[in-house]
C-alpha cells in the first residue's frame, strides 16, 4: 500500500491508522482561512474534510453526533473570531451550542473529539497548525469507539406534514437567558439516556 510518494510522510509510523476529521467551516472566515492555507501551501495531514456552512452557528449538535456516528474520529467547528462574525454574533451562539454539546459528549466520553476554534480569513498558518494539532490529539485518543452505534434523531421538515417533536435536548439550542440552567439539566438528562442506549446496543 505505502508505495513511492508516501515515503516522505513521517506519520506512517506506528500502526498506520489515520484519524478521520470532519471540519465545519464558516464561509467567511475559516473556509477562507483554509483556502489561504492552500494558497500558501501550508501542508497538513489529509485527515480532514471540510464542509462549508454559511456560519458556525448553523452547525446543529445533531450534525456532530451524526458525524461521530458515521465514522468521524473528530469534529472541528471553525468560525470567525468573536466580534468579527459576518452575522454580528452568530459565533457566540455557536459557542454556547458547541459547549453544550461538549457537555453532553462528556457522558459519552467523546468530548475530546469535538473542538471549536476561531480561525480568521488571514490565518492560513493557524488553520494548518490546528489541523495538525487536532490530528495528533485524536491519534492519541485512538479510533472513535461509537462509530455506527448512536443514532441521533434529527427533526426534519415533515414530508407528510407531520409535526416532529424535539428529541429531548439533543439539539441544544441556547434558550434566552434565565432558562439556561433548565436547558443544561435537560441536556445532562438526555446525555445520560444516550449513554445508556450506547451500552444497551453493545
Amino acid at each position, binding site marked *: 500500500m505505502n*508505495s*513511492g*510518494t*508516501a515515503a*516522505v*510522510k513521517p506519520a506512517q509510523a506506528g500502526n498506520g491508522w489515520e484519524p*478521520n476529521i470532519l471540519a465545519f467551516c464558516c*464561509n467567511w*472566515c475559516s473556509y*477562507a482561512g*483554509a*483556502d489561504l492555507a*492552500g*494558497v500558501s*501551501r*501550508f*501542508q*497538513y495531514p*489529509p485527515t480532514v*474534510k*471540510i*464542509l462549508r*456552512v*454559511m456560519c458556525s*452557528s*448553523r*452547525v*446543529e449538535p445533531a*450534525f456532530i453526533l*451524526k*458525524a461521530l456516528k*458515521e*465514522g*468521524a474520529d473528530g469534529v472541528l467547528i471553525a468560525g470567525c473570531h468573536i*466580534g*468579527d462574525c*459576518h*452575522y*454580528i*454574533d*452568530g459565533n457566540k*451562539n455557536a459557542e454556547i*451550542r458547541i459547549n453544550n454539546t461538549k457537555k453532553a459528549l462528556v457522558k459519552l466520553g467523546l468530548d475530546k473529539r469535538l473542538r471549536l476554534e476561531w480561525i*480568521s*480569513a*488571514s*490565518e492560513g498558518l493557524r488553520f494548518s497548525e490546528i489541523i495538525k494539532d487536532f490530528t495528533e490529539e485524536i491519534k492519541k485518543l485512538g479510533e472513535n469507539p461509537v462509530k455506527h452505534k448512536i443514532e441521533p434523531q*434529527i427533526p*426534519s*421538515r*415533515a414530508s407528510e*406534514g407531520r*409535526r*416532529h*417533536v*424535539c428529541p429531548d435536548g439533543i*439539539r441544544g*439550542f441556547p*434558550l*434566552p437567558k434565565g432558562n439556561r440552567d433548565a436547558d443544561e439539566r435537560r441536556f445532562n438528562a438526555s446525555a445520560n439516556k444516550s449513554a445508556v442506549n450506547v451500552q444497551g446496543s453493545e
Partner: protein
Amino acid sequence: MFKEVSEMSDNKGTENKGTVEKDIEEKRVGVFVCECGVNIGGVVNTKAVADYIGTLHGVKVTSVNKFTCSDSGQADIQQKIKEHNLNRVVVAACSPKTHEPTFRACIEQMGLNQYFLEFVNIRDHCSWIHMWEKEKATEKAKDLVRMGVERSKLLEPLQASEVPVTDKALVIGAGVAGMQSALDLADMGFQVYLVEKEPSIGGRMARFDKVFPTNDCSICILGPKMVEVARNKNIKIMSYSEVKAVDGYVGNFNVKIEHKPRYLDVTKCTGCAKCSEVCPVEVPYDFNEGLGTRKAIFVPFPQAVPLRALIDKENCINCKACAKACASGAINYDMQTSYTDLNVGVIIGAVGFKTYDPEPRHDYGYGLYDNIITAMEFERLLNAAGPTGGHVVRPSDCKEPIRVGFVNCVGSRDKNTNIYCSGVCCMYTIKNAQLLKEKRPETDHTVMYIDIRTPFRAYEESYNRSRNLGVKFLRGRPVEVKEDPVTKNIKVRVEDTLAGEMRNLEFDLLVLATGIVPNEGIGQIQQLLKLSKAADGLLMEAHPKLKPVDTTIDGVYLAGCASGPKDIPYAVSQGSACAGRATILLKNKKAITEGITAVVEPDVCVGCQVCVPMCPFQAIKFDEKENKANVVKALCKGCGTCVAACPTGALEQSHFKNNQLLAQIKNVFKFQEVAA
C-alpha cells in the same frame, strides 16, 4: 411545487431510497474534475477520481479538463448538459469563493437553475496542502467529490432576488483616497456624502511637506482638490462627524451620522481666525504632531476645508473672549451633538492610517532623548507653514542640526511590532534627506536601512538623485542608541553590514522612519460595516488580487490605507477604483442578492419563538394571530443561526438544508469503508 426527500435515517446515502413526494425527477449528475494545469493534476489522480465518481448512483457523466474555468472547459460543461440532459452539475476544482459565480453563470446559460451547481474544492483543500501525499490526496479528493455529488442530488432551485439600490453614496474618510472616490462619483452625477471625523477634509496628505518622487508641495496639489470637493454640488461634506450606526444591506444602507459640536455656527463663521487671536489658552497643536501650539478656538490649518473655526471644549476655560471678538456672532457655547440619518446605496470606507507611535516602546530611545523625532514631526518642521517656519531644528536647544541620521523600518519589518513593510518609508526618508540637503547643503545625512525599496516609477531615480546629492546610505540597523548628557547629541552604534564592521556615529538629530499602522477607530468601522480584519489589524479586501477594493459585504468598498500601506498614487487609484465599482450598482439601480435565506414551514412551526431573539438582523417577525414565525426575506442574510435553534425543524436554510448537509456528513467517510 418541489419535492422533499426525507431519508435521514437511511444509511445508504448513495441512493435516494427514502420517501419521495410528488413529482420527483430523476437526478442526472454531471461531474467535472479540473486539473488546474498541474495545480490539481500534479498531485491528485484526476482520472481515478472521475472513474470512481462515475460509478456512483445518479452520475451520468464525468469529465476531466485541464482548466474547467477556461472557455473550452465551460463549453464542455454546457455540451454535456445538453448531451446527457443533466440537471445537477458538480465542479471539482478550486475555491467557490473565487469561481462559484463563473460556473453558476455557465449552467444558467443552459437553462439550469444556478443553485443546481455544487462546487467541490480539491485544490486549496486537497492538492495544495497534501503535495507530498499523492495517493492520500487522491483518496481524499474522491471523498470530497462524493460528498458533493450526494449533496448536489438534494439541491433545490432558488431565485436570487433583486433589490433596488438608492443612488446615493457614503464615503467614510476624506483623505486623498476618499476625496477621489467622492469626486468621481459626484462627477458621474450621484449624490455623495463625505464624512470626515477631523474638522477639515484632506487627511494625512494635508500634513505632508512635499511628496516623493517629484518633491512637489503636498498642500499645493491637494488644496485645489479639497476646494473642488467643497464646490461640487453633488458632494455634501460632513466634517467633524462620525458614523455611529450602519443598518440595512446592499443598496439600502441606513446610516446614522453624529455631528460633533463645533460650538459655533458654521453658516456665520468666515474663518477669519480673529477669535484665535484673543483666546488665552494655548495647547499643543495636533496638526503639527504636537509641535508648537494652537488656541482653544482655532481654524484647523490655513487651507482647511471647510475653513471654519471650532472650539476645543476640553481646553476651553469659558472666558467668552472669542464671542466678543467674533464680528459675525457665530459663537454658540450651548451647541449640542446632532445626528443625521442617511439612506445610501453604497459605502466606501477610506478610513486611512496613522503612523506608528514609537513612544510606548521607546524605539531607539524615542521619548527618552530629546533629539530623536519621528519622520512626521520632521515633515512638519520642514514645512514652511509648520511650527518653525520651515527651519528644521532639534528639540533640545532649537539649533539647526548639521549631522542628521535617519533610521528606516521603525514599526515595520519587525517581529516585535509589525512584520509587514510599510512601503513608503524608504521613499519619504530619501525625500526628507534630499529636501534638507537642498535647503542647507552643509548638512550631513546618513540613512540606516535594511533594504532600500523603490519599486515604482521615478522612485529609483529619486534614490539615485539623493545619492548624488551626497546622502550616505548605510545598510544596518542601529544596535545601540545613547544620548550624550552634555551636548544632547545622539550616539549610534550600528553595524555596517556591507563593510562588515561596527560603526560608532554621532548625530545632532535622529529621525525615525515610522511605518503605517491601522487608524484609530478602524475596529469600530470594521464592526459597523461587518468587515473582516486581518492579523495585522488592517481591513481585508474580498480578494487580494482580483477584487482589491471590494469587500465580502456587497455594496461596501475599501480605498487607501484602510486595507494596507499605500503611497499616494496607489491610494488615489483605489479611490477611483471604488467609485467605478460602486457605479455598477448605482447606475443599474438594482443589486442581485443571494437566494440563501431561512424559510419557515408554517405547518411545522409551533410558535415557540425561540428563533426570534436568535436573529442578529431582526429578520424573524412573530405573527401573533397565526402563532407562527415569519422570515422577512429582504432582511435575512442566510446565516442559519435560527435554523439550528429551531426545536421542531420548521426552519430550514435554503441551499444548506438539513438533508443537504446530512447527505454530505453521511458520505464523508464512505470510501474507506468500501475500500476496507
